[in-house]
Each structure stands twice: as C-alpha cells, then as structure tokens.
C-alpha cells in the first residue's frame, strides 16, 4: 500500500472537488428556489397551478436519478437543436430531480404551520405573498431544516453520478487516476473520505442552525433593564 498515488494527485483531485462543490452548490441553490415554488404551487387553490406541480413531483420522484441525467443529456440537445455542456446538463438534471423532493419538504413544512398564523397575517391586511414571506416561510424553514439538509447531503453525494456523462468532478477524476495507476483501494478510500468529511460537516452545521433558531424563538432572552440616567442619580443625591 502506498499513499504516493494520493499525494501525487492531490492537485488533480482538488480540481475535481472544486467542480463537485460548484455542481452541488449551483444545483442546491436552483433546486431550492424551484422546489419552494413547486411546493407552494402544490398548495395552491387553483387546479391549473396545483395539478401540473403535483404531476411533476410524482413523475420525477418515480424516476431513478440516472434516468433523469440521461434524459436531460441526450434529449435536451435533440429538442434544443444543439449540444449542451455536460456540466450544464448535470446541473439541470440535479435541479429537476432535487426540486421534486424539496417541493414535498416545503409543502409539508408550510402545512405544519397552524392555519391561524395565515389567518392572523391576512386579517391584518397583509397580502398572501407578504404572509408567506414574513410569517409562514420563516417558521416553516425552521422545521424544514433537518429534511432539507438531508436532501442536500444526498444531492452532494449524487453529484458523483455526473461522472457518467463526462463531467470532470471528483469521482470522474478518481476513476481516471485509477485507470492510469491501478491503485483502486487507496484512490477510492480517499475519495470516499472526502465525501464523508464534507457531508458530516454539513450535517453538524444543520444541527447548529436548528439549535440557534430554536433558541431565538423560545428561550428566555434577557429583557433589557431600563437604563438609569445620570441625571436621576444626581437628583437623588442632591438634597
């Protein structure tokens, strides 16, 4: 067993990790926005908005990720008429896939907020969107954090599947090194370790966020004491 293969290839793998992180970050950002909109659409009273959103979520959730990746990679160029970058294609596939799961998380999160909160907000003259933005979503997000992070962690790991369409991310580069040097054990153990460390860090961070938000809501925060003015003291001491 030799670790030379790792130390020699650190810069090469580092480039791959950067691509992986970029892929994950962009996909997470986009799928969060799209997923939130889909989740709200699923709660819409209007069938014209609700039914397409529900269909989308059901179809995507019933399809393996690798099929979504292939579908985007091979079909979109035919539809658009020109080829697209593997990286762009991967981002699109991950966004489509993850947003369906996030939609479900958002829907459940919004549903878990008592209806009285919406009623109070609407009754005070806020519009539906204002009620969502200031009252419902801030509370729902606290409850959505654990499942959302779970989803993001799984997306981060799933980015390794992008190797199949030729995105030069971490897994793809690990495979290339292995093909060249035949040190499977060292290479893949090290790569797995990188995924693990990052996922673990994300999950710890989520725990911290969750705790901090809960403290802000319920823990007794010190109520500031009224300040004693210098003049008050003077008035007392003056005979």
């Amino acid at each position: 067993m030799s670790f030379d293969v790792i130390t020699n290839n650190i810069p090469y793998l580092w480039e791959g990790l950067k691509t992986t992180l970029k892929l994950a970050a962009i996909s997470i950002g986009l799928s969060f926005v799209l997923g939130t909109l889909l989740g709200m659409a699923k709660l819409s009273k209007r069938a014209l908005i609700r039914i397409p959103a529900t269909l989308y979520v059901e179809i995507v959730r019933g399809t393996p990720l690798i099929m979504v990746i292939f579908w985007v990679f091979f079909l979109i160029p035919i539809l658009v008429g020109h080829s697209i970058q593997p990286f762009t294609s991967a981002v699109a596939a991950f966004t489509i896939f993850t947003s369906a799961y996030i939609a479900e998380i958002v829907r459940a999160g919004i549903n878990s907020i008592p209806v009285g909160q919406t009623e109070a907000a609407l009754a005070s003259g806020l519009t539906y969107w204002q009620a969502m933005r200031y009252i419902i979503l801030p509370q729902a997000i606290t409850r959505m954090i654990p499942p959302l992070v779970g989803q993001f962690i799984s997306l981060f790991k799933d980015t390794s599947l992008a190797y199949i369409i030729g995105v030069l991310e971490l897994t793809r580069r690990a495979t290339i090194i292995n093909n060249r040097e035949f040190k499977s054990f060292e290479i893949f153990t090290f790569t797995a370790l990188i995924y693990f460390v990052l996922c673990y860090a994300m999950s710890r961070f989520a725990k911290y966020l969750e705790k901090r938000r809960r403290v802000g809501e319920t823990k007794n925060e010190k109520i500031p004491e009224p300040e004693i003015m210098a003049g008050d003291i003077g008035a007392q001491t003056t005979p």
Partner: protein
Amino acid sequence: MPNQETSNKICPYCLEPITREDEITYCSKCGVPHHTECWRQKSAGLTVVEKPKIPETPTPKKPSGEPIISFQGVNKWFGKLHVLKDINEEIYPGEVVVIIGPSGSGKSTMLRCINRLETIQKGKLFVDGYEISNPKLNITPVRAEIGMVFQHFNLYPHMTVLENITLAPRKVRKMSEAEAEEIALELLEKVGIPEKAHAYPSQLSGGQQQRVAIARGLAMRPKIMLFDEPTSALDPEMIKEVLDVMKALAREGMTMVVVTHEMGFAREVADRVLFMDGGVIVERGTPEHFFVNPVEERTKLFLRQIL
C-alpha cells in the same frame, strides 16, 4: 374562580355588577338577583337607574347614519351543512355588538365572513362601503381597516412583541420603523404591558398574549375590531385583564363585534346582543331586554343552561 359572581350577575335596576359583599334579594317572579337597596328605591318610586330602564319589548338601538356592516340575506354552506341561514343584520359605527349562542350555531362563521376569512355563497355583505360578497373585490385593503383578535391569539412566535405589532403597519401602511414602534409602544402602554415589548410570545402568559394580540389589531388604527371568543382559551384568572382592555376600547367608541361566552361582558358593555342558534339569529336586543326579558323559548333555555 373569583370572578364568577361579578361576571355573571348584574343588578337589573342599577346595571352594576353584584359582588359578594352586596346585600341582594331575588325577584319573586323570575328569580333574578338584584341589590336589595335598588329594589327598595324602585318600589318607593325613586329613580336609581342612570341607563335606560328595562324595556318591555325589544328595542334595538338605531343610531343615525349608515351601517358600517350590513348583512343582506347572507347564506353559507360548509359542503352540505347550512351554517348561515339568511342572515340580515346591520351594525352601526361605534356600536358594540355581542354575538352569543351555543357552539356550532354559526356565530364565529358570521364574524369571519366580515373580513372574508370565510366566503359566503348567497346574499350580500357590505363592510365600510365595500361589497365583501363580490368575489372580484380585492379584500386586502378592506382587511387593513378591520382588526381581528382570535381565540388562540395567533401571535407570530418567531417575532418579538414589538415586531408582532409593527409588522402590518410597516408592510401594509408603509410606516417607518420608528413611527410604527412609537405607535406600538403607546398601545402596549394602553394594554398594560409596556415592559414586554422585546419579549417573545412564548415568554408571556395567555392573558398577556391576548392583550398583545389586541394591540396588534389596534396598530392599524382600524375602523372595526372583531373578537372571536377572545377569552375562551384563557385561564379564569386571566380573563378579567383581557375583558378590561376590551371594555376600555368600547368606552372609546370603537365599533366592535364580539363573539363570546362572557355574559357579564355582554351585559355590561354591549349595545346590542345577538343570539344565534342553528345558523339563524334567533333573538336580538339590548342586553337589558336580552337577559331580563327574553322572548324566544330557545333563548330562555340557553340562558338557563349557562347562567
């Protein structure tokens, strides 16, 4: 329950609450308690009442001017359940109207129709000149003129008391933060808890939370205040502090529609009482009429059960 005597029994002659210390006798005909002294003075032909005497027939107050809320043949169904049946009612500016009735009688639904938290299926409903029953009407600006207080307070748990109160003035009225906070602090003073401005709702008692909710409703300077069973979720010892705030509000001339089970409040504060049962307004009248001489059999039965 220390307040029971005072909140439930009102002397029909002087209309003051009867306390434990007062000397009382009961009417030989109807069994209603009253102050012995008042009865004696009444029998002697002296006038002791400042407010109008007990009327023989229902004579609802008919103030001049246009009604601010007007139900015209309003009907509502929940699925097949007919919850509001042909409701006709007019509420005038400055009036305090108390709606009472057994649970499931439609009183909360009637209240919630006023700011369209519930939509109606038939009839017309006008509030502050707007036709609420018109589905094309944008309800948001109308709601800004109507404050609402809920049974379960519905304060925003992720915001401080101050933020709860200033949110709507800032976002709907586009007030500056300083201006909104000034109003909020003034209102907190009024409801008696200025020191809780920076607390979170979970740090307050039920009574304090409900007073914050009232302040939140008032922060928009509404023309109408709706109260949906504001004391039903409170511990008995906290009911009074909330009712006191509501009484003060009524004295200031706020138009109030109150769904409640607090008969003492209804008797003392209401200009008119509506009694609902089975989606119908069974009886309406002044509190004196209502509690002393109800006409409908259903009303008598209800009052016997709760008093």
